[in-house]
């Protein structure tokens, strides 16, 4: 019964979508908002990477929402897994793992920061760099599980980075009467110091995402919790 309903629903949906396919302007969509951004994005925002311009300037509110969602998820994971002092049963990694992690840590850190800071110029940005940062901090945990990560410090970084994002937005609110309007000079298109406050926002996003994901992975790893 359940499967029959499923097949019917999926068949119906698939049929609809396939039939509609011939009416949809695939491959030649009506660019409305997109065309305008392509035209003026570089000048108004000053970022060469227009995706970053959309993400942090035009649709900055979405990015704030996205940060909040990740924060909510991390908070809920903490709530679900409990906050007891957990006994980590994993043994110390072998020499190769430990040496490898020592080697990887600074490399990943630099790459992560590079990706974050060049978000407005090249593909990548706060979020992608943040994932790399999280990996940088997670690899040593894999090698030496007992040392773990300081969750207090992580929540501090997380909170302050999020507050910094909103703070930059509020600064614009009071300076120009528009929340999240990019401030500071736009600089020369394509230079590192350009696009006004965008790199700062990117930095905040990167730190927040990095701290959140690192915390998430470590708490999943440590979740040796007993029955509640």
């Amino acid at each position, binding site marked *: 019964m359940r499967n029959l309903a499923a097949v019917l629903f999926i068949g119906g949906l698939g049929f609809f979508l396939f039939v509609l396919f011939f009416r949809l302007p695939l491959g030649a969509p009506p660019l409305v908002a997109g065309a305008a951004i392509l035209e003026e994005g570089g000048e108004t925002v000053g970022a060469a990477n227009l995706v970053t311009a959309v993400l942090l300037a035009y649709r900055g*509110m979405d990015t704030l929402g996205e940060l909040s969602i990740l*924060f909510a998820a991390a908070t809920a994971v903490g709530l679900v897994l409990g906050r007891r002092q957990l006994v980590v049963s994993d043994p110390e990694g072998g020499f190769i793992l430990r040496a490898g992690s020592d080697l990887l840590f600074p490399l990943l850190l630099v790459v992560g920061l590079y990706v974050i800071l060049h978000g407005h110029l090249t593909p990548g940005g706060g979020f992608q760099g943040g994932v790399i940062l999280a990996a940088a901090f997670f690899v040593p945990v894999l090698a030496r599980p007992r040392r773990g990560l300081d969750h207090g410090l992580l929540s501090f970084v997380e909170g302050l980075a999020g507050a910094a994002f*909103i703070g930059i937005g509020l600064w614009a609110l009071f300076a120009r009467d528009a929340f999240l309007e990019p401030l500071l000079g736009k600089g020369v298109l394509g230079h590192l110091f350009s696009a006004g406050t965008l790199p700062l926002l990117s930095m905040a996003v990167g730190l927040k995402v990095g701290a959140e994901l690192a915390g998430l992975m470590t708490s999943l790893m440590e979740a040796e919790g007993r029955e509640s």
Partner: protein
Amino acid sequence: MLPLILPVVLPLLAAFLVMPLARMSALIARALGPIVLTTSLVLLLPCCLDPPAQPLVLAIGNFAPPLGIVFYGDRLALLFANAVALFFLLFWDWRGGNPQQARQDALMLLLAASATGLALSGDLFNLYVFYELAAVASFGLVSLSGTGPALVATVRYLLVSAFGSVLALAGIALLYLQTGTLNLAQLGIDPEPLQGPAGLLAFGLMVIGFGVKAELFPLNYWVPEVYASAPARISALLAGLISKLAVLILLRLLVLVYGDTAAPQILLFLGILTIFFGEFSAWRAQDFPRMIAFSSIGQLGLVFIAFSLSGSWGVLAGIAVALHHLLVKSALFGLAHRWSGSLQALTGSAQRTPLAAALFVLFALSLIGVPPLPGFWTKILVLAGLAQEGSALAFTGLGAILLVTAVEAHYLFRFALQLYEKVENAPAGFRSFWEFLPSLLLGAALLAVTLRINPVADRLRAITQQAADRSFYITQVFPQAAAHRKDQP
């Protein structure tokens, strides 16, 4: 413009800061939430009591509408934004004492911010983001007790909700593919291409997606377990407030784009199914939280039936039913805080806590629609609208509402009689009347509305007039589009 942006942003800021602050001073961290919510209320209340003639429109970051995100605060949106601040203050966990208090407060604040955003945002994808934020925050809050049932209920809710989000996102992708814009007003400027099959499919997907939180029929089987295992405060907020905000998204789409299509018929059909499912399950329910959870599903079916009525009548009826349900259902869940057991175990509760039992009777009467309580007027609005419609489906809806009203009356009276039964050792119930203070306040509000039904009705008509007017919305967001329209009639 501050009333539009700060009620969304300040709770987010506070949520980010609660946990670091809690490490320094628990007191400050605890005070942060109420302070922020009160600030929002102070900012919003003047706009709601004495609404500006023109809606507040705010382009975030000063990026002109189709490029950036727009916040649109007409009377309806401001009313809901106000209700968010008010209800979160009412159902705030004032007592505290949870070992994970900071996390819980952070999630409450995130939920408050997302709810305000849902009321105010005028951008489809931004609405989706706020909707997801509301979903994720509520997952955390529902599983607050950490017991097995709470976790299982959360996971079921999470899977249904995530599936709904995927469908809603597919709908948004289909819309974007056809129009190249996400701005609601711009979608409304030229709705004709969207009224074909592709547009209707997109609408259907979004109805299913956003219908998850609005407790609409196919995807609402998570409701009873979640409301039965979550803390009653959270159930009150989810059933009362968040479900209405999900409905608000669909209302905007209906008014701006899909008013003249088959979409209202879809809603009417789903609404009838929802109302049957909800009320008959409520009739069979054996415990108090699940009874009112199912009854909440039934009421939302009524909301959808109301919104399917054509023209501004439907909007008026829908808003009236939604506001009435917001008031009554939040209050009933406020009572569920202590009355969490089976109906049988609550027999004779009126002996110890007569005030709570009286409140229940008051809300039950309004829910059934006994005159002169507001519930009566809202039901009359819907029934009159359905009678005017005249189609076969509309008459089916009419019959359905009358039938389920009888069912509703039966189970609510049955329970009310049980409450007043004389028994030897009556259940303890509430320890003090502080425990149902929110319900008491809401009951007083209900009585106040009953006594001053005319001014309230006038206010509702003013709200509807703005909310039901497609070209009004478009003109407010795109003044130049309106001028363009006048040139070529």
